């Protein structure tokens, strides 16, 4: 589907400071194409802040490169146009617009005034494909505000698909989902992750174990451990952090 060369996300020495509090403290990490990277860590570890910095929402120092492009210092919408998309902890869709309209808007950042000022006729191909991929074809004419929680998350992922992003940053995509919905989401991420780079922030350890190809553990704004699921679980520092924080083993579900 995409012909653009696949790029690495390369973060080095990233620091984010709010009023003297350092939320991300010198993080360096590299995520390659086709990777399904999970970003885990206790609350306040700086996971969401990291994603905020990459997508231009939080001012940061250091360097974030996606392929040849330096991202830091660019406004949010310019970073989005480089093929980087994200979702939020609470699904943010345009509630008064239909599913179809939501996806059509996501597809249209490059449209000129001539197209914008006319009515949509039919369903653009990429929108139809995304509807199919996330399984929302049957509800495409419903206002997004009436969707179930899980469907909203899928709609957000669908919006990233029509945006044709190369790098997807998903912030707790399965929070609040049923077991079947999690399974469905995981399979979806696997399918669409073949020609994209996906970074998932997640607290659900079962979900991580099943679908992660690699894991980065953040703690207090730093990278604590990195590797495959097995490597990370065997790391005594990770066990210590999770035991100390929640009195539960790293394998158990930490933080609902």
């Amino acid at each position, binding site marked *: 589907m995409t012909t653009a060369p696949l790029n690495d996300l390369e973060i080095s020495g990233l620091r984010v400071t709010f009023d003297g509090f350092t939320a991300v403290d010198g993080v360096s990490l590299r995520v390659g194409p086709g990777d399904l990277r999970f970003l885990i860590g206790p609350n306040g570890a700086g996971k969401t802040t990291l994603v905020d910095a990459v*997508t231009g929402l939080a001012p940061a120092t250091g360097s974030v490169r996606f392929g040849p492009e330096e991202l830091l210092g660019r*406004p*949010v*919408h310019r970073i*989005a*146009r480089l093929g980087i*998309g*994200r979702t*939020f902890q609470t699904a*943010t*869709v*345009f*509630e*008064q*617009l239909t599913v179809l*309209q*939501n996806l*059509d*808007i*996501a597809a*249209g*950042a*490059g*449209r000129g*005034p001539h*197209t*914008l*000022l*006319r*009515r*949509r006729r039919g369903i653009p191909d990429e929108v139809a494909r995304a509807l199919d991929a996330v399984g929302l074809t049957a509800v495409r004419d419903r206002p997004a505000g009436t969707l179930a929680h899980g469907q909203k998350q899928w709609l957000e992922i669908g*919006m990233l698909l029509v*945006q044709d992003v190369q790098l997807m940053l998903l912030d707790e995509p399965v929070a609040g989902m049923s077991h079947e919905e999690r399974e469905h989401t995981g399979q979806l991420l696997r399918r669409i992750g073949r020609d994209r780079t996906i970074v998932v922030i997640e607290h659900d350890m079962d979900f991580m174990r099943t679908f992660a190809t690699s894991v980065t553990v953040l703690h207090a704004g730093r990278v604590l451990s990195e590797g495959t699921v097995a490597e990370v679980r065997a790391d005594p520092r990770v066990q210590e952090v999770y035991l100390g924080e929640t009195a539960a083993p790293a394998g158990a579900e930490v933080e609902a």
Partner: protein
Amino acid sequence: MTDFLHRRRAPAGYALAAVLLFALAPLLLSDFRLGQFARYLCIAIVAVGIALAWGRGGMLVLGQGLFFGVGGYAMAMHMKLADAGPGGLPDFMLLYGTADALPWWWEPFRSPAVALAAVLLLPMGLAAVIGWFVFRRRVRGAYFAILSQALAAAFAILLIGQQATTGGSNGLTDFQGFFGYSLLDPVNRRTVYFVIAATLLALMLLTRQIFHSRYGELLVAVRDAEERVRFLGYDPALVKLAAYVASAGMAGVAGALFVPAVGIISPALIGIVPSIQFVIGAAIGGRASVVGVVLGAIAVAWAQTVLSEEFPSAWTYFQGGLFVVVIAFLPGGIASLWQLATRRRARTEAVTAA
């Protein structure tokens, strides 16, 4: 069948509106009342712009008087110069005796083409400059409303202060002709009414088209979740700017048509109070509906005429009360009553079917 009715409803409505405006109103209303009606329609044109910027775009434009005034003064300056004849000075300048030569910025308005272009381009250009700074800095909500209102107030104060070149608080008045036609002739005044009615209908159709376009959907998205739109690769500042500039253009055209219809433009007609009144009409009619804002604007302007003739001191309270009631209990305005009714009917049908 219902789908067919639904698709045919809008064209039928506009055809009915055209009959009302072009046949019934001139037939039934006296020349005096028709002149008043022309004034209401000018306010309705401003309201159409408010539906776009506020109803769809979420920008509470409390200072449309600024653009209304710029358009109105541009037209009034041309009409004054046309009345004065080639090389002549407007009567008020001779009266006050302060200006012995025409100020340089009056000169271009001798040309009808320049004046007509200025009616549209000056308000839009001004809105583009204001909007560029305001939306880039992410000023919104109440701050935007207060800022836009302050600009309208500042413009009115500026005009009052420049008595010698703007007519001060008296404004510009006593117009004899409109592009070569005498305004003393009732037939020509009637023609002015028709021009206004046609402009209103055309702008309603244009705005309706914008509402149903992809841009209209995008504008709703920006109104409801501006930050989210940024992550899709759009600059929301530009999306809002376009709607704001278009609404300013409509206010400018309305101001320009107001001058030949009513025969005056003055700071009192463009300051804070009229700016708020533009918004009240739109709010009461239903800010997100083109037909709603037009009916609301006409109804409020008409009620103002009638009630302020009967109870001069009570009108302001009545208007304020009406505004509060609508905002508190019917945020979608009168237009939403229709939607409420259809939704209730649909629910009843669903219950019957089940």
